[in-house]
Structure formats: C-alpha cells, structure tokens
C-alpha cells in the first residue's frame, strides 16, 4: 500500500511578473517576426 503523496510547498512568486514579461518579449518578438515572414510567404500558395 503506497503512502499518499504529500508535496512540500514552494510557492511561485508573483513579484517577478515584469521580469517574466520582458523575458518572454525578448524571445517572443523575434519569433513572431519570423512567423509573420513565413506566413506572408505561405500566402503565395493561395494566390
């Protein structure tokens, strides 16, 4: 009989919300630019 799993709690912080936003923007902006360029190219298939 396994004992029920009891997890020690280490709460996530909400104080670094701005850092998370900036981090995602740093990688998200170039990614979105690349995706938009590819999407524009892909539209040629339907012209």
């Amino acid at each position: 009989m396994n004992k029920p799993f009891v997890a020690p709690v280490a709460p996530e912080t909400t104080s670094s919300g701005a850092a998370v936003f900036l981090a995602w923007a740093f990688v998200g902006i170039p990614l979105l630019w690349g995706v938009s360029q590819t999407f524009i190219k892909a539209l040629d298939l339907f012209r």
Partner: protein
Amino acid sequence: MAEASLLDRSRTVAGPGYNRWLIPPAALAIHLAIGQAYAFSVFKKPLGALISGDPSAPAAADWTPTQLGVIFSIAIVLLGLSAAIFGKWLERVGPRKAMMASALCFGGGFFIAALGVHLHNLWIVYFGYGVVGGIGLGIGYISPVSTLIKWFPDRRGVATGMAIMGFGGGAMIASPLSVALMDHFKSTGTGPMGVAATFLTLGIIYLLFMQFGVWTIRVPADDWVPENYVPNPQHSALITSGNVSADNALKTPQFWLLWVVLLTNVTAGIGVLETASPLVQESFSDAAMGVGRGVTAAAAAGFVGLLSLFNLLGRFFWSSASDKMGRKTTYAIYFGLGILLYALIPTLGRNLQLALYVGAACVIISMYGGSFSTAPAYLSDLFGKYQVGAIHGRLLTAWSTAGVLGPLIVNFLHESRKAQGFTGAAAYQTVFYTMAGLLVVGLLANLAVTAVNEKYNEKGPVDAEPGGH
C-alpha cells in the same frame, strides 16, 4: 576564475520564490538560435558563386551543390553524436555551463566558417559550421530539456514543447535575417556575395542572444515542487517513480522501442519535408491542372513555408496535448493518423485535390514536429528525471539516422518510379506507401512500450549526487 564558477551548477540553484516561467524563455533563447541550422539552405546558392559572383553561372572553381550539401549533413550528424556523447557531462555540470559551451561552439562555428569563406577553403567551412557548430547544436538542443522537466513535473509536455518549438521557429527568423544581411553586405561590397560578413555577424548575434539563456537558466532546489502539485494518477502505468541512469536506459527494451518510434516517424516526415517543393510542383503541374493553373515555384515556396509553420505549431500543440492524453496514446495518434494520411496523399494527388493534399501534408508535418517535442516527456515518464537529458541525447541518434535514411529512401523510390515512366503525383506514390509502411513498424514499436522493469532503477537517492540534477 570567478567567471567559471558562475557557470557551475551549484551557482544556478534557484532561491525560494524564483518564477519558473522564466525558464522556458531561457530555453527558447538557445533553441531559437540553433534552429538556424534548418535555414542553412539559404546560403547554398551564394556559397556556390563566391568566385563567379553570379549564382546562375558558377565558375569552375566554385563549390558545387553536392560539396555544399555536406556542410549541413556534417552538422546534423555532429548534432546527434554530441547530444549522445555530452549528455552525461551536461547532467553533471548543469545547464548553464552546457548552454555556454553551446553558445561558444555555435557562434565560434560561424566565425571559423567565415574565415573558410574568406579564404575560399571548404575544409575550414566543414570544420567550422559542420563540426564545431554541429557540436554546439547537439549540446544546445539537449541543454534545457531535463531542467524544464524538473521545473514542470506537472506539465512536462508543455514545457519541452515550448523549448523544442523554438528549434522550428529558429529557421523562420534565420532565413529572412540571413537574406537581408547578405543583401546588405553585398551592396556595400563587403566580400563576394556578402557571405563571410553575414557569417561573422550571425556568429556575434547568436553568441549574444544565447547569453540570455545562459544567465537566466536556473535549476530548482532538490526539494522543490510546484505549489499544489499532486502527481497525475492518470496514465500512471508507464510513469515511473524511480530513476534510471543513461547507461542503464540503453539496456532496456523501452529505450530501443522509442528509438524505433522516433526513427520511423522522423524518417517519414523528412521524406515529405525534403521533397515538399518539387513534390507539390510536379503533382499539381500545368500539365495536370491546365495551363496557368499549376503550382508555381513561388507557390511551392509558400507550401514549404506553410509546412514550417505546422512543424512549429505541432511541436507545441501535440506535446501539450500529451500531458492530457498520455505519451503512448499521443504517439499512437501520430502513427495511426499518419498511416491514413500517407496512404491517402497519392489518391489526393491523382484526383488533383490541392486543398486536401496541402491539409494532409500540414497535419503530417505537425505530427513530425510533435514527435520531437513529446520524446523528452515520454523518456521522463519511463526513466525518471535523473539523467533524462543524457538519455534524450542518446535517443537523438535516431534523428541523425533518419536524416540520412529519409532522403535516401525518398530519392531512390522517386527515381525508380520515374525510370519506369511515371510522372507527376504517380512518381511519388511508392514513396508515400513506403512511408505508411514505416509508420506501421513505428506503431507496433509504440504499442510494445511497457513500464520499465524496476531492476534498472538507481538504488538510493539520486538527487544528492553531483550528476543527479
């Protein structure tokens, strides 16, 4: 030596309250950079015209397409080899040092390749982009995987999907960026075709961009778990609570079954990706569709772009879905749906149903991408978190094998059909039926996956030892 110690694993353990949502962007910074490899083809024509200066009329001394194709092949083979070789080292030293090594190799590879282009010495380019850059690819690819799984035990598929999605997205950034840089340097007269200066610039950009990942990445403390986390009781038959080392994983049938699973799915997917442009142009040519109604070269490039988008989306979508459905079920869908679609595509081609044809190819490629991003979570379920990065690295040799096998099969079958007088969609018929057959093998391998025997588990605690995190 102070800088070196900052890279040590012990200096990257997150303090209380560190927001785990900073980890996926750190991983993405690495994967978006190394994903450039998929866009290397944009350099093929300029590299083949360094002497003549005109890609449409290369000089006798210019490098041939075959010679240039070897650069990418070396890089992909080195990716698989270095991922397999350096996986255990990565688990020991932690993700920051591994990411730094990846950044130095990948950026340095560009610098060496730039020198090779400047001197017009192909061997230096092979060594730079192929060998040194390829090692950077391999270490970079696996560097964030086990860290992500440890930060997101409740969403392993989502976490690895986000990172590995970046590898697909990297090419989308690199392709237009490289073209723009070459145009710029060509117009300013910076060397023939502007390639050397572009390599140098890309090396600097990627070296700096990857630093964001290097300095943002953290590993969780040994006793850390997410708030309110309770292991999912569903799909638990395959999810181990034990830990298997990378060396022991190789002794299990489960590892080799997954190797076959990845090999078959990737071989089939590469078959479509490699031939996408000629495939759609030949299947829906003016001769078949009517004059002026066939798929042009520009439209075919759009088809390739669309496949890239679905490759990227599939990496995130399917891997995330696997958190709900379970990995085995998700792979069963890749194979079951894949077999149907591969078998259907020749019929769609024969009946000139372009929209359905494109739709089927997009779903196939989404599952090709998904097979990459779901694999780390599948490994983690079966072998535990202990050395999942190293095990993943060894699994990636299936990718390298598929990279050689896929194009070989496709080219051989296509050429054979053409030699028999078949044209258009009919020339690709056996390619798709063969790929469907390969997927049957993959489906059977996936169905045979069961829980790993406990005799392979590590005895005692593993998180306390240096290689354990």
